[in-house]
C-alpha cells in the first residue's frame, strides 16, 4: 500500500451488538487520521423518570434501561437503595440475589459467545445459517442460554424484568423442589459446557495486545460479583462509595453514551477484567477450563473477553450449585420485605455481565427520589475501546479495508457493548457537586 492511499472504514449500525453504534476509521497510507465509535442510540433521559418516584420503584424503572442485564440493574439499584435506607440484607436474601445474578450472567455470556461472536468465525452473518449447517451447535447454545434464564425464572419469576427481588428482600421464594430440579440441570450441563470450551478453544482469537487498567469489584469472600471495594489491576483500591474519584465521566459529541476515564487513563471492565483481577478465586472447574482455553492471567488481548466470559460461565454454574446447596441446607424461610422510608443517600455496585454497574440515589423523608446517578459498564468501556481501535488500526489497515473492517467489528463485538444501556445513563449532579 502506498503512503498516500486513503483508507476509510465506515460501518453504520454494527450488527450483533445490543443497540446502535457506528465505526469510523480514516487513514492516509499508514497514518491513522481518525478513529471513532459513534453511539447514535436515542437517549431516554431516565432522570426525569426517576425524579419524584417512590424509592421502591427504582429497581423496576431502572431495570428497563436494559433487557439483557435487567437483573443486574435491579440488584445494583437495590444495593444503592438499601445503603441509603440503612438496610443490611439477610444471608438468605444475599444467596438468592447471587443466584439470580448468576442466571443472568450465564444467559448473557452464552448469548454473546454463540450468537454474536461465533458467526464471525464461521464466516456467516448470523446464527440463522448455523441452524442448517451446525444444528448441534445452535441447539447446545439454546440449551445453555435457557438454563441461565431458568435460574432467573425460579428466583425472580421471569428472566427479563424479574419480579420477586425488591428493596428489602424477596416477595416470593422458590420451593425446595424447584431449586433441586434446577440443581440437577446445572450439574447435567457439564457436557454442554465441555463442548462449548472445546468449540471456542478451536477458534483462533485475533492476535492483538494492548495492556490497560482493569477494574472490578473486590469483596472479602471469593470471586466478587458484589462488593464494597473497587480493585484496580494496578493494585490500588477505592471504596465503592467514593467511585467518582476512580471513575470519571465526560460528554463527547459523537456519542450519546458518556465516556469514562479513571484517575490514570482509559480502563476496561467486564469478564476479562474480573478474571484477570480475581483468577485465584474462580471455582476449580473454571480454572481448569481457563487452562484448556489457554488463558493465563493477566491477558491483555481484548478479543479474549469472550473467552473470559466462558470461564465465568463455568464459574457461575459451579457457584449456582453451591448456592442451592447452601439454601437447601438452611431451608428457606419467608422474610417479608418491610422497609421504612427515610431521608438518605447511597451507592451500590454490582458486577453485571459487561462490568461494574454503579447506582447512586438520594431520597427525601417521604422516600421520593431526588437525585440519581448511574454509571453503566459499556459507558466505562467506550473510551478504552477507542484506545484499542487507535492501536489496532495501523496493524489491520495494511491488510485492506475489508480485513480492517472485520477486525474492527470483531473488536467491538468482543467488548459485548450494550449500547442502549449505556445511552440511557442517568446523570443528576449530587448536591454540592458541579
Amino acid at each position: 500500500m502506498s503512503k498516500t492511499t486513503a483508507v476509510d472504514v465506515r460501518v453504520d449500525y454494527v450488527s450483533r451488538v445490543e443497540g446502535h453504534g457506528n465505526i469510523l476509521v480514516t487513514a492516509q497510507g499508514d497514518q491513522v487520521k481518525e478513529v471513532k465509535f459513534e453511539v447514535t442510540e436515542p437517549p431516554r433521559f431516565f432522570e426525569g423518570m426517576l425524579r419524584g418516584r417512590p424509592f421502591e420503584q427504582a429497581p423496576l424503572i431502572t431495570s428497563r434501561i436494559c433487557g439483557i442485564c435487567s437483573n443486574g440493574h435491579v440488584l445494583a439499584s437495590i444495593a444503592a437503595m438499601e445503603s441509603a435506607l440503612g438496610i443490611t440484607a439477610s444471608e438468605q436474601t444475599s444467596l438468592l440475589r447471587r443466584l439470580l445474578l448468576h442466571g443472568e450472567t450465564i444467559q448473557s455470556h452464552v448469548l454473546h459467545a454463540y450468537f454474536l461472536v461465533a458467526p464471525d468465525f464461521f464466516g456467516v452473518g448470523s446464527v440463522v445459517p448455523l441452524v442448517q449447517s451446525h444444528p448441534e451447535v445452535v441447539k447446545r447454545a439454546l440449551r445453555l442460554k435457557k438454563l441461565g434464564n431458568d435460574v432467573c425464572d425460579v428466583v425472580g419469576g421471569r428472566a427479563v424484568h424479574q419480579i420477586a427481588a425488591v428493596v428489602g428482600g424477596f416477595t416470593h421464594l422458590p420451593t425446595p423442589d424447584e431449586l433441586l430440579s434446577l440443581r440437577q440441570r446445572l450439574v447435567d450441563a457439564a457436557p454442554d459446557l465441555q463442548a462449548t470450551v472445546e468449540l471456542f478453544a478451536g477458534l483462533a482469537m485475533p492476535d492483538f495486545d494492548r495492556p490497560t487498567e482493569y477494574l472490578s469489584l473486590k469483596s472479602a469472600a471469593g470471586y466478587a460479583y458484589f462488593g464494597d471495594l473497587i480493585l484496580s489491576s494496578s493494585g490500588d483500591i477505592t471504596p465503592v462509595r467514593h467511585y467518582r474519584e476512580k471513575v470519571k465521566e465526560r460528554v463527547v459529541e459523537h456519542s450519546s453514551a458518556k465516556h469514562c476515564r479513571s484517575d490514570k487513563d482509559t480502563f476496561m471492565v467486564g469478564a476479562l477484567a474480573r478474571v484477570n483481577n480475581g483468577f485465584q478465586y474462580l471455582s476449580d472447574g473454571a480454572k481448569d477450563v481457563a487452562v484448556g482455553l489457554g488463558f493465563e492471567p493477566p491477558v491483555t488481548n481484548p478479543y479474549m473477553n469472550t473467552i473470559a466470559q466462558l470461564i465465568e460461565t463455568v464459574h457461575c454454574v459451579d457457584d449456582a450449585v453451591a448456592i442451592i446447596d447452601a439454601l437447601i441446607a438452611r431451608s428457606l424461610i419467608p422474610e417479608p420485605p418491610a422497609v421504612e422510608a427515610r431521608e438518605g443517600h447511597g451507592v451500590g455496585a454490582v458486577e453485571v455481565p459487561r462490568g461494574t454497574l454503579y447506582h447512586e440515589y438520594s431520597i427525601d423523608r417521604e422516600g421520593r427520589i431526588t437525585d440519581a446517578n448511574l454509571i453503566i459498564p459499556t459507558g466505562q468501556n467506550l473510551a478504552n475501546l477507542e484506545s484499542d481501535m487507535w492501536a489496532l488500526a495501523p496493524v489491520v489497515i495494511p491488510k485492506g479495508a475489508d480485513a480492517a473492517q472485520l477486525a474492527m467489528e470483531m473488536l467491538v463485538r468482543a467488548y459485548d457493548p450494550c449500547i442502549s444501556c449505556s445511552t440511557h445513563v442517568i446523570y443528576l449532579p449530587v448536591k454540592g457537586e458541579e
Partner: protein
Amino acid sequence: MSEAMIEALQTLKRPRVAVFELASCAGCQLQILNCEDELVDLLQLIELAYFKEAMTETSDVYDLALIEGAVTREADEDKLRTIRERAKLVGTLGACAFPVGIPGLKNGHDLEEVARQVYGEHASYFPSVEAKPVDSVIKVDLHIPGCPIHKDEFLRVVTGVLLGRKPPIPGYPVCVECRLKENICAFDRGLICLGPVTRGGCGAICPSYGSRCFGCRGLADDPNLASVENLLEDHGRTREDILAEYALYNGYYALHDGGLKAKVAP
C-alpha cells in the same frame, strides 16, 4: 407452537418477518431469542428479514414488521413511515411501542430541563421530544403487549397473524386471571394494583410473585370501572392514586385522548 400450527405454517411461502428497535431496553427482542425451545422451528418457518441485534443481513420487503420501542426523535417518525410502506402488516412489541411504557415517564416534565439534567451544558447534542407510541405515528395492525412481552403470547400471535387469524389477545382485565390463580388481592395486601383496568393475558404474573399490577399491558377493552370504584372506596384510596400509578406505563395516553383519565375522571 402446536403441531397443527407448524403444519399450517409449512403450507405458506416462508413469511418475511422484520424486527426494528426504537427507544427501548431491547428486552422484547431478547424475549424472541429467549424462545429457546421453539427458535429453531420458528427460523425454519419464517424468513428473518431484518433483526439487527442478531444478524448482519438486511432486506426491504416484509410480510410482518415488528417494532420495539417508543418514538422519541423526529427521525423515528420517518423511519416508521418507511417501514409502514414496506410492510404488509405492522405490529408493536412491548409496552414502549404501545402504550409508551417507561420512556413515557419523562412526558409531563420539561423536556429541555430533562436533557440538561443528563448532559449538562452539552444538552443540545442530544435533543429529546415527547415519547410517543408507534400508533400515534403510523397505522398499527396488532399490539403484542407487556413489559416484557410474554414468549408464549409472542409465538401464538405471530403464528396466528401469519395464518390470517385475528390476534388472540384477551380484552378482559388482569383480575380475571389473578382470581383464577387464587392470589390474595393486592388491595387486601395494602397495595394499589392496576389489575382491574389492565389488559389480561399475562397470567397475572406480577401479583402471583408477590407484587402488583403496574399496567404494562395498557388499558383493557372493557376495564371494570365499577369494581375499581368499589375497591378504591373499600380501601380508602382515591382516583388520583390510580391515575398516578397509571402514568408509569401510560404516560402518553394519560396525557392525551383515550386514556384512563378520560374514563375515570372526565
